[in-house]
């Protein structure tokens, strides 16, 4: 029982970082209809940049904040290349992000080296209901909850957030009322970068991150995003928590190496299920 609760708490913590990556996928996909394969790289940039900045003596908090800012900038740059040319089809943009994601390895090795990095998160631990868990777990959960609350307020209450939603709802109508959909796409890429970076700075103390950790991070984030058809952040959050807990249980009770298989199997099952469910609906609509 004790063990189970421990797996649960660590699963929820990693699930939260998946949720942030997933929301990055969602933020970008909603506005641009581009699946951003560089999403995992944003998390790696966040984690490695925070590590480097902490090494230079920047205090906790400031280092993480700057790292998230750098990841947002990286997001904006990826967006400029991927969708900056007006009228590029989403599939072409997707391939561009895939290329940038792989190309980022070289840049990351040049800047941060090829060794996995990690740093101490929030020190200490707390006992809740008889389970001792690191405070970093609680920090991850708290930051994720705050981020989702902020995102909800941003999309539902601010004019810019509504304009982003409008681009997702009906891009043609968005252009008609004068919204620059390409510029909104760039905003969404920057937001996706920030969310990926935030996931990275929270994840790195839990598990070391290296230049090629992006694939694993992106697969987990994407699997969670697929839960909500890559369109609904809250469903993606639920998906991410389920995924995080499932992986922690699999790793705990069987072999740790099976862990990453969980996301792939889940994603495959979901996509097959969704595809088989959606087809008749579209036929009826047509």
């Amino acid at each position, binding site marked *: 029982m004790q063990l189970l609760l421990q797996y649960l708490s660590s699963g929820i913590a990693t699930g939260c970082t998946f949720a942030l990556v997933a929301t990055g996928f969602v933020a970008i996909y909603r506005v641009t209809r581009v699946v951003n394969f560089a999403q995992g790289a944003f998390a790696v940039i966040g984690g490695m940049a925070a590590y480097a900045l902490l090494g230079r003596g920047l205090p906790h908090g400031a280092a993480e904040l700057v790292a998230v800012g750098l990841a947002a900038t990286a997001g904006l740059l990826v967006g400029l290349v991927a969708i900056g040319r007006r009228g590029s089809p989403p599939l072409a943009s997707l391939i561009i992000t895939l290329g940038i994601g792989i190309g980022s390895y070289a840049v990351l090795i040049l800047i941060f080296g090829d060794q996995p990095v990690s740093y101490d998160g929030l020190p200490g631990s707390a006992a809740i209901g008889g389970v001792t868990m690191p405070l970093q777990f609680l920090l991850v959960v708290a930051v994720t909850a705050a981020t989702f609350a902020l995102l909800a307020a941003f999309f539902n209450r601010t*004019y810019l957030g*509504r*304009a982003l*939603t*409008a681009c997702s*709802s*009906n891009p*043609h*109508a*968005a*252009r*008609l*009322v*004068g*919204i620059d959909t390409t510029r909104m796409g760039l905003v969404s890429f920057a937001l996706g970068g920030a969310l990926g970076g935030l996931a990275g700075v929270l994840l790195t103390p839990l598990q070391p991150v290296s230049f090629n950790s992006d694939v694993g991070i992106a697969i987990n984030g994407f699997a969670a995003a697929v839960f909500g058809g890559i369109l609904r952040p809250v469903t993606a959050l639920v998906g991410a928590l389920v995924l995080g807990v499932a992986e922690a249980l699999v790793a705990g009770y069987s072999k740790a190496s099976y862990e990453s298989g969980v996301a792939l199997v889940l994603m495959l099952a979901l996509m097959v299920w969704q595809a088989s469910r959606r087809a008749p609906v579209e036929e009826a609509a047509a």
Partner: protein
Amino acid sequence: MRDGTGPLLDVGDLVVRYGQATALDGVSLRVDRGEMVALVGPNGAGKTTLLNTVCGLLPVAGGDCAVRGRVAQVPEGRQLFADMTVDDNLRLGAWTVRDRDPSRIYDLFPQLATMRRRQAGTLSGGEQQMVAVGRALMARPDLLAVDELSLGLAPMIVDSLAEHLRRLNEESGMAVLLVEQNARLALELCPRAYVLETGRIVASGPSGELSRSAAVQAAYLGGAITPSPSEGEGRGGGF
């Protein structure tokens, strides 16, 4: 081109292409301030292309398209933000202007005031068209470009919407460029009209004259007496 120097909309020898295909081939059209002008023609003539070019959504391949003022479009099929509220739809219409308060639209269409929190996609066709018109009005346009006001709506609702347009035009001096399949409605509402066929203007002038011309009657009014341009029956002008 500045405000107040010439007609509100001045289209001259306009050419617009989609890739290799020429959609508009030397179109000239003018709308003065405060004027209501109809643009009629069959499907695929290029009416929507012309509106989208006027709204700056399509590149001009040749000729001029000068707009001396603000233009807003009520697109064909409404094109609302279906999963957003009526209120959000209206507010987003004001993206290019400062004043985002939709209360004057609710004054204009009191029916919408009671549904401001509802998702626009759940409204009836007529109510959705009101939202589409309201959203365009939020931009405080000098020219309202309306694409198929009547499509898919009951005659009573169409009459009411047309009456709203007429009143807006009278009271605020807003010009209207109305694209309509229902040529009878368009020619009744607008004093002046153009007929567009396969990318060219084939006739233009006061609506009264146009609706008396035999060619327009046969093609768009289904004969002089038949109430709607139905296939077959009225076509030959047999009455």
